[in-house]
């Protein structure tokens, strides 16, 4: 994930809050150790090395996350896809060296992409890649998963009020008194375009450009770089879903997003426009435009 996590905890005993916060952050570290695409010792790296021909026994929690990711992929018509790494490599995104691939490179990479390239056996707790060269990256869902795991720790510790931020882009407020979260203009991050109040909810924001201003989102369905929408924020109860959908909604058109939100209750998308206005799709939100 290569990102920093922050927690704000409210309560009466600072020592207790600090300890609970440390335990939650340790959980985030463990998730990173397991999910990292870059650490050779992570379970995801191991799956990428050994998944073909497989099968591999995978830790049940991770297998369930992979299985869920594949499900979201199907529900979004392939707009969110954990197998899209070969496409990201084509465009030099994984290596952080942007380049324009040849058409045949994209075509070849697309042959390795798609939920049908992975076989998950929940009963045997195993998975296998169906083709050599297939790989997974949980970068588009891992932050939300880490936030969710940290939230579980804080709930177990009966923390009354807390907000957890994964890199400032995936934020979850524990059910309690509610927190006001600012949504910024992706092009001018110092300018706030809206403020939303969340309580027992997550908000996740994705942008089509990375911190250096380079495009970094590829449409897994076409293999083409995504440049139309500047950013989208997704609000729903589950930080895992919010994280995944914020990537998916960047590459889906407005009709597809609206259709998804109609068929999935409790999901909303917020699109800031260059004019400073925001467009909301899906469930009602406690949202104020600035």
């Amino acid at each position, binding site marked *: 994930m290569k990102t920093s996590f922050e927690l704000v905890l409210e309560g009466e005993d600072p*020592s*207790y*809050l600090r300890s609970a916060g440390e*335990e939650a952050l340790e959980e985030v570290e463990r998730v990173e150790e397991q999910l990292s695409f870059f650490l050779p*010792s*992570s*379970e995801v790296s191991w799956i990428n*090395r050994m998944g073909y021909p497989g099968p591999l026994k995978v830790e049940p*929690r991770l297998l369930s996350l992979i299985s869920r990711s594949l499900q979201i992929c199907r529900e979004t018509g392939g707009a969110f896809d954990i197998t899209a790494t070969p496409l990201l490599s084509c465009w030099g995104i994984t290596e952080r060296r942007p380049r324009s691939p040849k058409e045949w490179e994209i075509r070849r990479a697309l042959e390795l992409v798609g939920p049908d390239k992975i076989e998950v056996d929940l009963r045997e707790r195993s998975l296998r890649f169906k083709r050599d060269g297939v790989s997974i990256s949980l970068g588009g869902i891992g932050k939300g998963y880490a936030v969710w795991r940290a939230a579980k720790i804080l709930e177990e510790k*009966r923390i009354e009020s807390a907000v957890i931020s994964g890199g400032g882009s995936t934020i979850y407020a524990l059910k309690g008194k509610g927190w006001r979260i600012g949504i910024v203009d992706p092009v001018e991050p110092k300018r706030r375009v809206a403020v939303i109040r969340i309580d027992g909810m997550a908000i996740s924001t994705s942008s089509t450009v990375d911190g250096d201003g380079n495009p970094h989102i590829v449409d897994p369905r076409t293999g083409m770089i995504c440049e139309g929408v500047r950013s989208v924020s997704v609000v729903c109860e589950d930080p895992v879903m919010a994280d995944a959908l914020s990537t998916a909604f960047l590459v889906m058109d407005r009709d597809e997003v609206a259709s998804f939100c109609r068929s999935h209750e409790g999901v909303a998308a917020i699109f800031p426009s260059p004019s400073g206005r925001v467009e909301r799709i899906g469930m009602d939100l406690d949202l104020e435009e600035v």
Partner: protein
Amino acid sequence: MRGVKRRDFLKGMAVIPISTGSMAGSQEGEVGIGVIGTGVHGKRLLSQLQKVKGAKVVAICDIYEPNLLSALEITGGNVRTYSDYRKMLEEEKGVQAVIIATPHNLHAGMSIDSMRSGKHVFCEPPMGMDIEECDRVIEAQKETGRVYQIGFQRRYSALYRHAFDFIRSGMIGRVGLVHLQWHKRQSWRRAVADQRWEKVLNWRLYKDSSLGLVGEYGLHLIDLLRWFTGKTPEKIFALGGIDEWRDGREIYDNVELLLGCPGGLRAFVSLNITNSYRGDFELFMGTKGSILIAKEQKGWMFKEADAPKSGWETLAKREAVGDETAIILDAMATKLVEEEEMIRDELANSFQAELQDFIECIREGRRPEAGLQEGYEATKAALRIIESIS
């Protein structure tokens, strides 16, 4: 170790014989595992065990129910749970081996009881809280012939094995100075709502149940020093204190050591939970170069200007580390092609690798690379250090 199969190498290391005649667990079947202690580290091992070939976790044990419940999620729920490890040892006939990840003061007793119940033992370090306890563990192992492995995961890491090859082959010359560090700003205190559980959940903070920083991270570093250099500290200069987390704890939040080893080798060891600068690293400095390993994940070699160059160096990958250029230690780059399958396995997580080897030791009646002797020597050195700080 280049050109030598890992198993041959491990066999060559055997010192303490173990009997194979009474080994439980067959070549064909899975080894039934019971995990005693499902706190933070127990869960980490439990998570790795899900991937270990030939291992089947059948029971877990912890006196704190929330630990058991969160551990159940990792196993997928299909294991029996216990709050009393003795009951587990008695009732679980299908448990052939136990993993012990409990407070330090319970390690020796649980190891002995387990071996006497016919179970093989994988125990986190330290081996015991004092030498007498360690002696009793050794006695029980000799008496029962069970496999006893200690959790020094670095010995099973491809990166560390690679660095070991370089050092032992003389690539960095005579190693005279070693810097070992484990730093992390973290209180080590668990949030305990019900004070009846304070001593149980915050066992790391009290001398009755914990050997502190030296007994946790220090032990791993002492073992690494012994493994890489073949030398055990003789002279000890040690300082420590509770400088930041003055919350009623008894163990130090920072410890600095200067260790003198035979042949003039010196090691600085810094263990600290008040400051996280540069995190954890191990640096071995020799007359021809140095080897640095950071966060158990990445390694580099720095050559001295007057050191002879080897042919392979022209092909080696380099990168800037600070203001120096270093050769990246790549465990994959120098291994033999026919060993590819093994290498791919070795590159797995070192916790997974150590547990996989534990299962293989049980099946093959082999002594673990990190076994009684390694556990004993490192624990003995740690106890001397703790005594000298006191």
